[in-house]
């Protein structure tokens, strides 16, 4: 149980990586805000073409997945490997929901002939969400690796830094979306 009292949880190297990633997103958000300030009308007009229902489903999917990941960490701290694996798989399936729904949006935009060059709003919308999409993918790779390692019995109540490390990264992916969703889809 000692490891769980350590702060920050998980590996320090991962936290440096998370901070660096957040910095990239922060820059992207700032660039978005800067461009929007110069093109308010354009941004507002094309914002209405986005599918907020899909984005809401995705928001719920990611929040739920973060809850599942949290349960997985709580279980491994109690030495419950089987439950930990179940929660991780549940989180992964929520990640898959996100990817499927988001891909559906991309297909819709693509068939409407929209690409990075269409206008500044779409450039940011596609860049930001796709960059985030890749992070969901990377997060799922990390969660999968943890799931496999838990299944192999590598983690326990005393040694589960890996689970905490992966969970930290996943929460970062979630938090970024919680900013991205209102910023790009909702805010006027």
């Amino acid at each position: 149980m000692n490891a769980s009292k350590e702060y920050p949880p998980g590996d320090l190297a991962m936290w440096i990586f998370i901070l660096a990633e957040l910095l990239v997103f922060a820059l992207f958000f700032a660039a978005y805000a800067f461009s929007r300030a110069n093109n308010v009308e354009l941004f507002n007009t094309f914002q209405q073409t986005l599918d907020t229902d899909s984005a809401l489903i995705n928001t719920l999917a990611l929040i739920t997945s973060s809850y599942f990941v949290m349960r997985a960490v709580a279980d491994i701290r109690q030495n419950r490997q089987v439950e930990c694996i179940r929660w991780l798989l549940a989180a992964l399936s929520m990640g898959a929901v996100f990817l499927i729904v988001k891909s559906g949006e991309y297909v819709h935009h693509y068939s409407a002939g929209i690409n990075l060059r269409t206008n500044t709003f779409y450039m940011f919308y596609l860049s930001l969400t796709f960059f985030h999409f890749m992070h969901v993918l990377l997060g799922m790779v990390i969660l999968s690796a943890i799931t496999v390692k838990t299944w192999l019995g590598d983690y326990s109540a005393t040694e589960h830094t890996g689970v905490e490390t992966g969970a930290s990264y996943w929460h970062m992916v979630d938090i970024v979306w919680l900013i991205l969703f209102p910023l790009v889809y909702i805010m006027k």
Partner: protein
Amino acid sequence: MKYQSQAVAKPYFIAAIGLFIGQIVFGVILGLQYVVGDFLFPEIPFNVARMVHTNLLIVWLLFGFMGAAYYLVPEESETELHSPGLAILMFWIFLVAGALTVLGYLMVPYATLAEMTGNELLPTMGREFLEQPTITKLGIVVVALAFLFNIGMTILKGRKTVVSLVLLIGLVGLAVFFLFSFYNPDNLVKDKYYWWWVVHLWVEGVWELILGSILAFVLIKTTGVDREVIEKWLYVIIAMTLITGIIGTGHHYYWIGAPEYWQWWGSIFSAMEPIPFFMMTVFAFNMVNRRRRNHPNQAAVLWALGTAVMAFLGAGVWGFMHTLSPINYYTHGTQITAAHGHMAFYGAYVMIVITMISYAMPMLRGRDAANSGKSQVIEMWSFWLMTVSMVFITLFLTAAGVLQTYIQRYTDDPQPFMVVQEKIEIFYWMREVAGVVFLIGLVVYATSFFIGGKEPEEA
């Protein structure tokens, strides 16, 4: 030296140092031609001297990387090199091909060289840094493939470590991206677009993996810090390198006719490129502070720390200075680029190769771990002479670049290029003086190999 076959690294390192000296001699000639335009003309025109200066740099760094890999991989894999004979054969092929190419540059006009080497069969010549005749490029591919085969087989049959795998990924990437030097479309936009896949994805992509793994190896050896700790840092550093470096290619796409979104993608991602270099600095100092032993080769530790600092300054800080597209709009292709190029190449790649040479050479020459104290003092002198003079070269070129950007492009009354060149002449003179000091430092470095004496004990 733990494995007999590591010895093949030695000729590679010697060739690297030899070509390094050649590169710097041409650098000093070039520096003078900036202010005395017809110096050595028509024997060595400016464009030829520049080609020799940059090509020698690339070739000797490649010798250095290959030597480093031949030394590092057997030790990491805990097995003898797959084929030492092949490594030696490739050494001679590469050296002869390199020497003939440079002689070709110097002896005949470039157009004649192109004709002599059958460039019209597969035209690849005439582009900056990729001036080599097609036949030389094919030779480089053959050498690279044989090298990768040799290294790959060694890793496959032995212990697989993070350090050797990262090195292998970097080396494979180096070979793969070089293939774009054979793609030479008529469309100038496409030409530039893919030209950067060699140039940028080398130095701001896969070469950084090579740098990271060599640095990690030397730090494991000299500090005695747990491999697990060092490997974790290496993972994070290379992940950040690839995320920022690959999309950061966009900072070359601002003004070549590529789509506009590259202004944003290039600016945002390349602005992040200093991060992995900063991590490398924190990493190197952290590991040395947590050292479990005081390695007798203090010169190698100095070079390792120097690499981390100078790579961050040269590649990170000086790169960031002109990477944002609104700034690059004014600074593009000025002496600011030259300032960045000098310190980045020196700080990241020259210094990492010397770090490896400094660490490995004493063992390759039959010592237990280090050169004599006296030899190390001389080597450290060369470190400071070269590093400080490089800092000055960079500062003078930066001053020249800022002034050039301002007078030639930013004022209400912009002046023509050559008028501006005369105005910034003083900085070129000062750069030349710093360049001569660098050459002296390099001679001091070469001298340190000839100073004997007893090996210091491990403290």
